[in-house]
């Protein structure tokens, strides 16, 4: 398995970058790089070389905390080195292909095919085609079964592989759950095989026994004529990898700091993993359980260290629901106390409407004030009950009073349309709620600030996702979404309200991919070959490529989207034990159906 490591010379890179948009994406001149240098690479000993790949552009991928965590952990070991690679933008892809240059990592500009292992972070399904594209530009065969013994091992982790079916065709293995512990176990085994029998198959057999590891070649799927799954062999579930105590891993205090501007230029710190709320549409709310929190005291100490190491002026406390972090108050106070006079601003991206208190408003207010984001998700109380978004309009309005009374001028609201049981009234209620929030906010603000008042509304299309109580429900057809979006737009005209919405055609593909099975792999491959990539970029989304690809592969999109799945059928993701029993999801589903029915009986 020992092979020569090939890399790109800096002079060559300079030539490649002539006329390329945002060349800083590709040069890797960043503070905080911790991968091993050329000396180590020349004489690795029993070293293992990993590429952490993020299939989106640099500016989007850099702020991803998961990748930074793994990078930090791997590079803490003397015998392992992790480098990073991001998806090249289309102009650079074209340049690489035209000059027959393979995609390379940022640190030592190593061509992807020279790595021992490439690990993709898959945050959503619309990054599948980019994943294939990166492998291909990197000089690696995309189909796992066709890769030779010298090719790198390719794996993926992240929420878009909790249903490992669709990417099974391309991945040697996938990791479900927390990566912190398992990554080192995997690398140690890889080291053993690389310098031992040199046998990839033997390595895969070994790791298949570990919690959290799914090796597609170990499983076979059988189907009925109607397309449903008949059985999965062997019937053994892969248990999600879970770390018990977050505090047993320090936060990343020396992250890589981008040189160019990214989507979130700030120091990111995870305060809690998992969410106790269990909103019925929300995959994150289930797959990251159990809820685990870091201790505020340690967070303060480590964050201060991280701020000193990075020089960031903004810190962002990440969690799925900051309001459920019981020590929020002492965390904020602790940080502000330590950073007094050092110009720090704090952001809490997941703060919920119902817990936005005067105390917290004042604490965040001491620094610079980032925008507020709130997600009521639905306009009517009926709908919020059905999806279990436990928040009342009164709570929403009280928070609006506090926020706008204490200096905020902008707010971003998230809504979702196409939810189960939704009626026209519920859609109209979204428009009404937005208007009521705007009215209330303007009333609470000082008059002098009214000019600057602004509401951003983001309307998302509901996608039933695996491992949620709504995993069985049908998705609305794209035409229905268009009507619903127009209905909202028609009812709102204020100049200070800006509404954006997700493309229903794209959401339909995302739905098919997230609820798909192993047969989806060929469709992904063909769509990519027909030019699909950057599928979540509206202007690049290639609808025809997907439609054609589904057609030639005889995959009816409706089967995975507008179809209500049977609660009795074997689901493609049944192969994974996410830590929550199916009957819990079923109970949530039935409760929602009950609420939908009660309501229609009354009417």
């Amino acid at each position: 398995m020992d092979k020569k490591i090939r890399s790109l010379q800096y002079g060559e890179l300079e030539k490649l970058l002539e006329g390329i948009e945002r060349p800083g994406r590709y040069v890797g001149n960043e503070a905080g790089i911790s991968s091993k240098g050329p000396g180590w690479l020349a004489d690795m000993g029993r070293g293992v070389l990993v590429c952490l790949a993020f299939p989106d552009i640099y500016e989007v991928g850099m702020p991803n905390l998961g990748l930074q965590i793994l990078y930090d952990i791997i590079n803490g070991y003397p015998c392992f080195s992790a480098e990073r690679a991001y998806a090249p933008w289309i102009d650079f892809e074209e340049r690489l292909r035209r000059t027959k240059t393979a995609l390379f990592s940022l640190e030592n500009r190593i061509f992807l095919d020279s790595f021992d292992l490439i690990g993709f972070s898959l945050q959503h399904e619309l990054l599948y085609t980019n994943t294939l594209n990166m492998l291909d530009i990197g000089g690696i065969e995309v189909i796992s079964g066709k890769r030779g013994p010298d090719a790198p091992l390719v794996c993926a982790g992240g929420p878009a592989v909790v249903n490992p079916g669709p990417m099974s065709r391309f991945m040697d293995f996938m990791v479900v759950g927390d990566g912190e512990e398992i990554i080192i176990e995997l690398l140690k085994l890889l080291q053993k095989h690389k310098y031992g029998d040199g046998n990839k198959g033997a390595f895969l057999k070994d790791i298949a026994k570990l919690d959290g590891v799914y090796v597609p070649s170990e499983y076979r799927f059988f189907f009925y004529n109607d397309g449903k799954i008949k059985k999965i062999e062997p019937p053994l579930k892969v248990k999600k990898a879970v770390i018990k105590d977050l505090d047993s891993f320090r936060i990343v205090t020396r992250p890589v700091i981008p040189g160019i501007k990214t989507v979130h230029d700030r120091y990111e710190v995870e305060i809690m993993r998992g969410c106790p709320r269990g909103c019925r549409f929300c995959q994150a709310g289930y797959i990251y359980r159990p809820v685990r929190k870091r201790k505020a005291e340690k967070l303060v100490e480590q964050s201060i260290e991280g701020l000193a190491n990075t020089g960031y002026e903004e810190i962002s406390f990440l969690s799925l629901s900051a309001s459920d972090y019981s020590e929020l108050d002492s965390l904020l106070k602790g940080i502000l106390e330590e950073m007094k006079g050092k110009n720090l601003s704090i952001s809490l991206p997941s703060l919920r409407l119902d817990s936005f208190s005067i105390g917290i408003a004042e604490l965040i207010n001491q620094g610079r004030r980032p925008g507020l984001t709130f997600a009521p998700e639905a306009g009517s109380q009926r709908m919020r009950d059905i999806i279990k978004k436990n928040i009342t309009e009164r709570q929403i309005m009280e928070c609006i009073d506090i926020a706008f009374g204490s200096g905020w001028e902008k707010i971003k609201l998230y809504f979702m349309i196409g939810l189960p049981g939704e009626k026209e009234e519920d859609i109209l209620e979204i428009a009404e709620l937005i208007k009521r929030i705007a009215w209330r906010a303007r009333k609470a603000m000082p008059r002098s600030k009214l000019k600057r008042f602004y509401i951003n509304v983001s309307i998302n299309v509901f996608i039933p996702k695996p491992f949620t109580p709504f995993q069985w429900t049908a998705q609305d057809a794209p035409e229905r979404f268009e009507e619903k979006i127009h209905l909202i737009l028609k009812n709102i005209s204020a100049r200070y309200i800006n509404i954006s919405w997700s493309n229903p055609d794209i959401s339909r593909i995302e739905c098919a991919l997230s609820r798909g099975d192993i047969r989806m792999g060929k469709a992904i491959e063909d769509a990519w070959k027909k030019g699909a990539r950057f599928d979540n970029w509206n202007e690049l989304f290639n609808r025809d490529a997907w439609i054609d690809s589904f057609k030639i592969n005889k995959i009816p999109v409706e089967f995975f989207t507008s179809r209500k799945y049977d609660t009795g059928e074997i689901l493609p993701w049944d192969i994974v034990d996410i830590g929550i029993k199916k009957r819990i999801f079923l109970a949530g589903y039935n409760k929602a159906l009950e609420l939908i029915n009660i309501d229609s009986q009354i009417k």
Partner: protein
Amino acid sequence: MEIKFRFKFLKEGSSKYLSHLDVISVMTRALRRAGIALKYTEGFNQRPKLSFGPPVPLGIESRAEYCDITVVEDMTDEEFASRANESLIGGIRISAVKQFSGRPASLMSIIDIIDYSIYIGSSYPGREKSLEIIDSACSIVDFKGSIHDTGAGKKSKDGKFWVIKLSGFAGTSENMGMKVFRPVQFVEKFKEIVLYYGLDIERVVKEEAYSLKEGEKLTPFEVL
């Protein structure tokens, strides 16, 4: 206590791919990492008091970027430079520092002339030919009146390149009725000319920036 420094820094290697906005945050973070207490502007959106000279265009290296800064702690010029340099990323390095007082005109407003070196990948092509090439460079219509002076080309120290020096007018000279020199566009056109002679442009470096005072070229340090 407040101290004002004017400093000069290099932007070499791959740091040339950072835009001016990127450089501002890279510099700010590096100074914060160095633990240097910066003075911040008052008001709602507080920013550290950094004010830069005209930035080198993206993609061109520089040995003469300038910046003024106010710090709120006591330190010498050397201390400032060495602490900052320990935190800066590859390619960006502070090369000279000078303390000043009072309120001199901003760097942006005083720089009139910028010198560039153009490295051509070849040995010296001989006096006659080199003059011919420089001549055609200066007569590219789009740049007439924006290049103020060119020295004759000479060999680089390592003998690998033939280096042409150019002086171009900076943004401020617009007020004096001169055309501003745009190096990126110039290099594109100039490349065609040198290619015709079988040569190629390997590197462009901003060498120095000057203020014009009564016909005399003064560096931003000399102005203070």
